[in-house]
C-alpha cells in the first residue's frame, strides 16, 4: 500500500535553516546538511529546500546548500524559492535536486511548468501554492506571500495540473508556523480537485494534526519544519503514531 509521506522542509536563508511565523519573524534553526542527516536516520521520506528570501531579494537557489544536503541523503530532494527560468531549474538539478518547486513564476508564466515537465518529466515539477482563507474560498498569494494573485487555489491547482505539474505543494499562510494544525478543509478542496498528489503544509504542531490532514484533509503527503527542527519530536515517533492509527507510513529499523 502506498504510504503517506512525511516531508521535512528546510527554509534556507544565507546557507542556514531559518523558520518564521506566518512568513515573518525568521529565526535560526540549524545547518541544512546536519538536519538532513538526522532526518534521514529518523526515516524522513523526502526533503524540501526552500530558499525563502530568494524571490524578494532576487537571488538564485543556493547551489552549495543543495549539494550539502544531497551529499547526506539518498531521498527525493526538492528545491524551491526563486526558480523563475529554465536556467534556474537547470542549476538546481545540476546541484542535486530531483524536483523543482515553482511558485510566483508558474503563475506569471504557466508555460514554464510545461517546459520543465517536458525537459525533466512531470514528476520533477512541483507547483507550490501559498493561500489564505477569504470567505469560503482560498486566495492565492505570490512573492513570498506579499502579493495577492487574484486567483482561487482550487482553480489554480487544476490549471497547474493541466500544464504538466506532477505535484501540488499547498501552504496555508494562515497556519504557517502557528502550530495550530493544517488547514484540512483547504487541503481536501484542492486534493479532491486534482489527480496529482497534494502535499499539505503550514500549521503542524502535534502528531494529531498529521492524522487530521491525512484523513479529513485527504493529503497525500505532509510537510513540516519547526516540529522537527528543534528536535521536539522525532520523525520515527510520528510515523509509529500514525501507523498505530491505521495510516500507512514507512518505518525504518
Amino acid at each position: 500500500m502506498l504510504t503517506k509521506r512525511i516531508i521535512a522542509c528546510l527554509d534556507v536563508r544565507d546557507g542556514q535553516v531559518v523558520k518564521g511565523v506566518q512568513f515573518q519573524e525568521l529565526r535560526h534553526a540549524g545547518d541544512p546538511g546536519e538536519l538532513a542527516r538526522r532526518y534521514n536516520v529518523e526515516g524522513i521520506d523526502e526533503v524540501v529546500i526552500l530558499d525563502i528570501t530568494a524571490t524578494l531579494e532576487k537571488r538564485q537557489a543556493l547551489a552549495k546548500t543543495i549539494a550539502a544536503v544531497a551529499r547526506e541523503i539518498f531521498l527525493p530532494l526538492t528545491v524551491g524559492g526563486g526558480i523563475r527560468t529554465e536556467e534556474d531549474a537547470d542549476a538546481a538539478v545540476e546541484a542535486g535536486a530531483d524536483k523543482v518547486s515553482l511558485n510566483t513564476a508558474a503563475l506569471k508564466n504557466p508555460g514554464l511548468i510545461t517546459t520543465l515537465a517536458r525537459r525533466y518529466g512531470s514528476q520533477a515539477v512541483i507547483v507550490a501554492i501559498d493561500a489564505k482563507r477569504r470567505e469560503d474560498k482560498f486566495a492565492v498569494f505570490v512573492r513570498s506571500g506579499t502579493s495577492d494573485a487574484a486567483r482561487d487555489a482550487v482553480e489554480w491547482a487544476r490549471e497547474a495540473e493541466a500544464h504538466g505539474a506532477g505535484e501540488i505543494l499547498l501552504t496555508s499562510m494562515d497556519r504557517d508556523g502557528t502550530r495550530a494544525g493544517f488547514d484540512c478543509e483547504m487541503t481536501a478542496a484542492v486534493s479532491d480537485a486534482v489527480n496529482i498528489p497534494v502535499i499539505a503544509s503550514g500549521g503542524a504542531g502535534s502528531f494529531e494534526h498529521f492524522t487530521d490532514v491525512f484523513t479529513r484533509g485527504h493529503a497525500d503527503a505532509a510537510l513540516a519544519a519547526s516540529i522537527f527542527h528543534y528536535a521536539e519530536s522525532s520523525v520515527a515517533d510520528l510515523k509509529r503514531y500514525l501507523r498505530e492509527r491505521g495510516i500507512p507510513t514507512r518505518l525504518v529499523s
Partner: protein
Amino acid sequence: MIALVDYGAGNLTSVRKAFSTLGARFFTPTTPGECADVAAIVVPGVGHFGATAALDAPWREAISAAVVRGTPLFGICVGMQWLFEGSDEAPGVPGLGALPGRIARLDGNATERLKVPHVGWNALDFTRPARLLDGLASGAQVYFTHSFAAPVTDACAAATTHANTFASVVERDNVFGVQFHPEKSSDAGLRILRNFLDLVGDRA
C-alpha cells in the same frame, strides 16, 4: 567499467551520485559501439517513454548483442519499462524486447483515492528469490514515481500494488530492472544497487 546510458531522459545526477558513493566505475557511452566491451549496462530514465526513441536500432542492436554475450543489463524506472516490447505511453516507440510484455497505464481508483501518478513509498512483495533483492525482506519500501507499469510475468521477482498489481522488480538471467528509484530509496535502494554491483563484480 559500467556503461551508464544517457539518452536525454531527465536527470541522471542522483543515479551518478549513488553509483559513485558505492564505488562503481562507470562512463556514459556516446556511440552504441562503446557498449561492446563493458562489465554491465545501466539504462536509467525518468519521465516519458517517448524519450527512449533516442535509443534507436543501432543502440538496441548493440545492447541486445551485449545481453546475448552475458553482459548484465539493468533498467531503472523508464529504463526498466524499455526492457519490454513497448509502452502504451508512446505506442510507436519500440522497447528492447528483452522481456515479453507491454507497459500499460495504471488505472488508479478514485473512490479509494489511489491517484495516478503513483508517487511515494510503497512495498515490494517478493514473488521469488532474486539476486537484486539479496539482504532485503519482502515488504521493503522504496520510492516510486510513475504512471505506467510492467505486467507481472515470469520475469517478475517482486510486485507492488496500487489499484493494479505490477512488476516492480524483474530479473531473468542477466536482465534486471526496477520500476522504482533505488537511488532515492535510502538504505533499501542502495542495497539493491550494491547487489547489482556485486553480481557485476563476480562476473569480471
